[in-house]
C-alpha cells in the first residue's frame, strides 16, 4: 500500500493550504468558511493519527459547533455594516511578525521531529490501571477522562459553565432572564425544516449511541454530547426549537448536572473507596456511566447556549 503515504502528504498539504487561506483571505466570511472546511479536514488527520475519539470531537466541535458559532458571528457582524476595524500593521511589522512566527514554528518543528526515542508513554500504566481504578472500561481515553484525570474533566465542565455565564453577562441588563436571540432571524423554508426533522432524530440516536459505547469503543460523554448539541442547533436553525429562557430552572439544572453529579460522586468516593474521586472497584463502570450520562446532558445544553449568545429581548 504505497498510496497511503501519498494520501497523507496530500492531506497534510491540503490542511496547511486551507489554514493559510484562512489567514490570508481578504474577506472575513471567506476566512470563516475556510476555517470550517479546515476543521473537517483536521478530523481526517486525527483519524490518521489513530485518534478516533479526538477525530469525533474535532469534527463535532471544530467543524460543526465552532463553524455555526463563527458563521453566525460573521453574519451578525455583517449586519452591523458600520463596524469599524483597526488598521492593519505596516509592512515592516508584518515582515517582522512573519519572520518571528516562522522562527518559532521552525523551532517547534525541529523539537517535534527530535522527540526522544523510545517515546515515553503512559500507555502501559493505563493498561495496568485499567484492571484497577479504570475497572471495566475498554476505552482507555474514557478511563483517563473520567477516572485517572477526573479532576481535569470536572473542572473543564465548570469552565464551560463559566463560559456560558460569561456569554450571558455581556447582554443588556434589561434583557436578563429572557431567551437568547434565535439562531436565524427569518423563518426558514421547507428544506431546512425537512432536514431538521429527519436529521435531528437520527442524530439524537447516534449521539446516545456514541455516548453509550464510549466506555469500550471510541466515543464517550463529550463526543456524544457534542453531537446532541449539534442536533439541537439544527433544530434551532430550522426554528423547530427556540433557545430557552436563561432563567429557566430546568436549563440551569441541566447545565450544572454534569459537574454537580461528578462532584458528588467524587466526594462520595471518600466514603465508598477511601479516596476523593475514587470509585469502588465493583461499581466503577455503572458509576462512570451514571456520571457520563449527566455530562452528556450538560454538554448537549451548554454548547448550543454558548452559540446562541446573550439573552435578547424583554424578560417578561
Amino acid at each position, binding site marked *: 500500500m504505497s498510496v497511503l503515504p501519498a494520501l497523507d502528504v496530500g492531506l497534510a498539504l491540503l490542511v496547511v493550504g486551507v489554514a493559510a487561506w484562512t489567514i490570508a483571505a481578504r474577506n472575513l466570511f471567506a476566512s470563516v468558511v475556510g476555517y470550517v472546511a479546515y476543521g473537517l479536514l483536521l478530523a481526517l488527520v486525527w483519524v490518521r493519527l489513530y485518534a478516533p475519539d479526538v477525530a469525533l470531537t474535532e469534527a463535532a466541535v471544530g467543524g460543526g459547533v465552532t463553524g455555526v458559532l463563527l458563521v453566525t458571528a460573521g453574519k451578525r457582524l455583517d449586519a452591523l455594516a458600520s463596524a469599524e476595524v483597526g488598521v492593519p500593521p505596516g509592512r515592516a511589522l508584518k515582515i517582522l511578525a512573519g519572520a518571528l512566527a516562522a522562527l518559532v514554528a521552525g*523551532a*517547534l518543528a*525541529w*523539537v*517535534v521531529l*527530535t*522527540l*526522544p526515542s523510545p*517515546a*515515553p*508513554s*503512559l500507555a502501559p*500504566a*493505563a493498561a495496568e*490501571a485499567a484492571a*484497577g*481504578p479504570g475497572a471495566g472500561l475498554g476505552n482507555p481515553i474514557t478511563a483517563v477522562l473520567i*477516572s*485517572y*484525570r*477526573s*479532576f*481535569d474533566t*470536572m*473542572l*473543564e465542565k*465548570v*469552565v464551560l*459553565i*463559566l*463560559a456560558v*455565564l*460569561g456569554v*450571558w*453577562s*455581556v*447582554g*443588556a*441588563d434589561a434583557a*436578563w*432572564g429572557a431567551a437568547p436571540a434565535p439562531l436565524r432571524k427569518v423563518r426558514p423554508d421547507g428544506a431546512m425544516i425537512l432536514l431538521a426533522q429527519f436529521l435531528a432524530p437520527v442524530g439524537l440516536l447516534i449521539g446516545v449511541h456514541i455516548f453509550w459505547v464510549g466506555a469500550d469503543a471510541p466515543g464517550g460523554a463529550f463526543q456524544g454530547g457534542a453531537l446532541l448539541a449539534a442536533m439541537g442547533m439544527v433544530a434551532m436553525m430550522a426554528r423547530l426549537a427556540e433557545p430557552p429562557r436563561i*432563567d429557566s*430552572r430546568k436549563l*440551569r*439544572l441541566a*447545565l*450544572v448536572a454534569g*459537574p*454537580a453529579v461528578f*462532584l458528588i460522586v*467524587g*466526594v462520595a*468516593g*471518600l466514603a465508598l473507596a*477511601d*479516596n*476523593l*474521586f*475514587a*470509585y469502588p472497584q465493583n461499581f466503577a463502570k455503572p458509576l462512570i456511566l451514571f456520571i457520563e450520562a449527566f455530562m452528556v446532558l450538560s454538554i448537549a445544553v451548554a454548547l448550543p447556549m454558548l452559540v446562541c449568545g446573550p439573552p435578547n429581548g424583554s424578560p417578561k
Partner: protein
Amino acid sequence: MTASPGGALLVFAVLTPVAGILLSFALGGRAAERITLALAPIGLALAGFIAFLVARSGAPLVYVIGGLPPPLGIALRADGASATMMVAAALIVPAAAFYARAKFATPDGVAESRGALTFWIMLQAIWAALNLIFLGADLFNLYVALELLTFAAVPLVCIDGRPETLAAALRYLLFALFGSISYLLGVALLYGGYGTLDIVLLGERIAATPLVWTAAALMTAGLLAKTALFPLHIWLPPAHANAPAAASAVLSGLVVKGSFFLTLRLWFYVLPALPMAAPAAILGTLGGCAALFGSILALRQPRLKLLVAYSTVAQIGYLFLVFPLASAPAGGALGWSGGFVQVLAHAFAKAAMFLSAGVLAEALGHDRIAHFSGAARALPLTFLTLGLGGLSLMGLPPSGGFEAKWLMLRACAASGQWIWAVPILGGGLLAGGYVYRILAPALADGVVEVKARPQLSRELVALGLVGVALALAFAPEGFFEFIQIGRPLAGGGAS
C-alpha cells in the same frame, strides 16, 4: 508519592468554591451572594488549617486524587509558598466580597440581575482557580486552572457593559488566550519528552535539552502574557482601571499573582536542573524595566484608578527580580523570601488601594487627581488607606513593601548582583512620586464636594487589608522559614 494525613483538605479547598459556583448557578438570584459570603469563613478556615498542617509537619502536604498516584493520576501539593498564598486569597477575596455587597446586591423586585449573578459567581470561580493554581502539581491540571481563572476574570472586567470595558475585556481575553496556548504547547512538549506532567516527577527527570528549553521558553512567555509583565502589559491598565473596584482589587491583588506563581513553580520546581543564569537575567531585566516604566507612566495618569493600575504594572516588575535573586548561589533564600513578601505586600496594599479608589470615586463622583484638593479632610480614612498602601508601594518602613525591598537588596548584596538594586531603589523613588501626586493635593487646603458619604464598613475593609500589608513588616523569623518549606534548592545547580 503518598498522601499525607489531612491531604483531603487540599481537594476540599478547591471543591468548596466549585460547589459554591454550581449551587449559585442553579439557585440563581440572591443565593449567589449569600453562598459567596457563607463560603468566606469556610475558605479561610480551610486555608488556615492547611497552613497549620504544613507548618506542623514542616513538609509539603500531598493528596493523590482518586488514589492513583502520578504519573497517571493527579496530585495536589501544598508547600509553604502555596499555603501562604491560599491564606492571602482567603483574606482578600472575602474582603472584596464584603466590600461589594452594596454595589452587587440583587435589586428589589427582580429575582436575579445580570451584574450581581455574574459578579458573585465569578468571584467564587476566581477563588477556586487560585486555590487550584496554588495547590496544583500537574501541569495540565494547572492549565485548566489558568483557563478557569481567565474565564472568571474577563467577565468581571466588562461587568458594567460600557464599550471601553468591553474592548478592555476582549483584549484581555484574546491576549490571555495567546498566553495559554503558548503554555499548553510547552506542556505538550514536556509530555512528549518525559511522559509525565507531575511537577515533582518532572523536576527529578528533566535535563537541559533543547526540548526542555523550548518548552520552558513557550510556557514562560505564555505565563508572562497572563501576568502582564512589561512589555506584555497590553491589557492590564484598561482592564484593571475600568473594572468595578471590588473586581479590580481581586484582579490586581490576586489574579496576576496566579500566573506569576506558576512561573515560579515552573522554574524553581519543574526546571531546577536547568542552568538558570541567562533566563533569570532576561526575566529580571524585563522586571526591572517594568518597575521603572510602569512607575513613570503611573506618574502621568490623570485618573486615580489608572494610576493604581500602572502601579500594578510596576509592582509586577519587582516580582520578577526574584528569578535572578532567588536562583543565585548566595542569598537565594533571602531573594525567595523577599519575592514572596513582595507578592503578599502588593496583594494586600493594592487590593486596599483599589477598594479605596472605589470609595473615593463614589464619594466624589469622579477620580480625577487634579480635583482632589482637600479631599483628605472629607475622606480621612480612605486617604489614610491610600497613604499607607502607598507607603508599602514606596517600600518605606514599616510595611511589607519595605521588608521585601530590604530582603531583596540584601540578596543583591549577598550575590553581588548590583544591577537589580537600580530598579528596586529607582522604582521606590518613582513610587514616592506618584504617591505624592495623590496625597499632596488631597492634604492641601481646598474643599471638595462630597456627593455621597462613604460607608464606614467599606472604608474599614480597605483599611484592614492595608493593615495586613503593614503587619508583614513585623513578620517573625518563623514566617520566613515557613515560606521556604518545600522549596527545592536554587535552580541551575544540578547541571
